[in-house]
């Protein structure tokens, strides 16, 4: 015995029905076909997200063209530092510009090596303004450190090791030789780009040191060391290194 629905209610119901139909049709036609494939999301979004090209290629990619680096770099404390950390993303190198490190190496290196509370104590750090020179004068880090094979670790260690290892000759090692030995080798044999001193002609030695003292030399650190030395000290060093046996005849020409 249902009572007939009033007209206005029927109209309302029809309207509601139409609205629902339109809404449902819209849902069906506007929803992406892949939407329910794996869940309540558009499955096609996943391959889209997976499609991008990597910018950072990893060190293995760099070493393909720079195999010379695989000799030193993997053995050094910087072995965990990927090429692109300092050189920037390789993208599609080999033609990429800007893979050179920034000119300001102090800023680059101190990003990791500036002494700072919160940095783990075992991590090598320097106090800017005290290293390399206590008076605050600065010098590009790469004058002394090779970023591909960094070190030495502790200056004190080096100094003691050098002292006991200075070559024994008839000429006593002058005190200044410890400083030279840090970069030019314990026996003055030369280390990497730092030339050998052993066997070097004394007159040539003095001439070059005087050049550095005048400020006309090409090395900032040598200028600094030379300026700190007196004529007598330079003469002593020159005599000492001349007395040492040259490791290789080629080095005599230097």
């Amino acid at each position, binding site marked *: *015995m*249902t*009572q007939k*629905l*009033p007209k206005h*209610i029927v109209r309302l*119901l029809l309207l*509601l*029905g139409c609205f*629902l139909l339109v809404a*449902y049709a819209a*849902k*069906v036609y506007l929803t*992406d076909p*892949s*939407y*329910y*494939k*794996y*869940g*309540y*999301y*558009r*499955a096609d*979004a*996943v*391959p*889209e*997200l*997976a*499609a*991008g*090209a*990597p*910018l*950072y290629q*990893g060190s293995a990619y760099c070493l393909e063209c720079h195999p010379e680096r695989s000799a030193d770099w993997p053995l050094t404390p*910087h072995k*965990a*530092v*990927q090429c*692109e*950390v300092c050189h*920037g*993303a390789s993208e599609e190198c080999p033609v990429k510009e800007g893979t050179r490190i920034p000119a300001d190496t102090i800023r680059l290196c101190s*990003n*990791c090596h*500036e*002494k*700072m*509370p*919160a*940095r*783990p104590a075992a*991590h090598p750090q320097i*106090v*800017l303004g005290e290293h390399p020179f206590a008076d605050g004068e600065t010098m590009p880090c790469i004058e002394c450190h090779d970023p591909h094979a960094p070190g030495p670790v502790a200056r004190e260690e080096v100094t003691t090791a050098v002292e006991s290892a200075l070559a024994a000759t008839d000429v006593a090692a002058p005190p200044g030789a410890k400083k030279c030995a840090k970069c030019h080798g314990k026996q003055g044999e030369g280390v990497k780009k730092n030339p050998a001193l052993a066997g070097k002609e004394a007159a040539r030695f003095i001439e070059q040191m005087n050049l550095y003292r005048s400020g006309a030399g090409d090395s900032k650190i040598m200028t600094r060391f030379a300026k700190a030395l007196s004529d007598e000290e330079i003469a002593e060093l020159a005599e000492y290194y001349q007395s040492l046996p040259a490791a290789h005849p080629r080095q005599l020409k230097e």
Partner: protein
Amino acid sequence: MKNDRKKNPRREFLSATGKALAGLGVIAGGSSLLGAATGDAATESFPTADYDWTKHRWAYGIDATKCIGCLRCVEACKAENDVVRDATHFRTWVERYVYLEGEEKARVDSHSDPKNIAASGSEATYRFDNRYQDAKVTKAFFVPKICNHCSHPACVQVCPVGATFKAEDGTVLIDHDYCIGCRYCVQACPYGARYFIEEEGVSDKCTWCYHRITKGLQPVCVDVCPTRARVFGDLNDDSSTIREFVDNNPVQVLKPESGNGPMCFYIGIDKDVS
């Protein structure tokens, strides 16, 4: 009373609309089920030919004792993922926790701190300043942070349009085509891992570099970390670094009480870190 109820027109109306709605609901439900069933049973690998997402369960590990706060991760992430180069848009970041003598609460700052922006020179480069070098510091450490790619992510739950979702391999992704920019997910994330791109009107987040991990690479923040403070890998693979990391260390997660089930595991963080 009974008669009154039967003749009640409002009741009639409600019951009629109820039935109509139920009918429509059945149709709608049936067709959406149909839709779900028609999705092919996926014999080929998805999402790419070389990568089957059902075979992986990615997780992330962070050893805070190794972090030196160099922010190379932030730098690389921004470049790799084309993130807006300013202080407020980032997918990963590093927080510095410093306890000064006589203070109980840690002082926390990250790359978006004005002093750090000043030290780095601009909002597009990243560097911590050395403001505590002369302070009496009792304890200090860095904490790298990133989206936790939670097992039960709140951001996915609140998304009204299904734009953000949990993929089968454990990553929480976002579909910019479907995002309507309501920012519910930004609000919902207890870790502050999401950000909003004003220019595009969509939310964005870390994808663990989905375009890299699906090609067998590591996320870029893991790749560039010079101290290996960040590790990433597949929990399904017993020989993976993350398996080793999680199995052999006392690990903890951030805000476990939030119930999101975060998948970033930490070593060496203080109780104050959240």
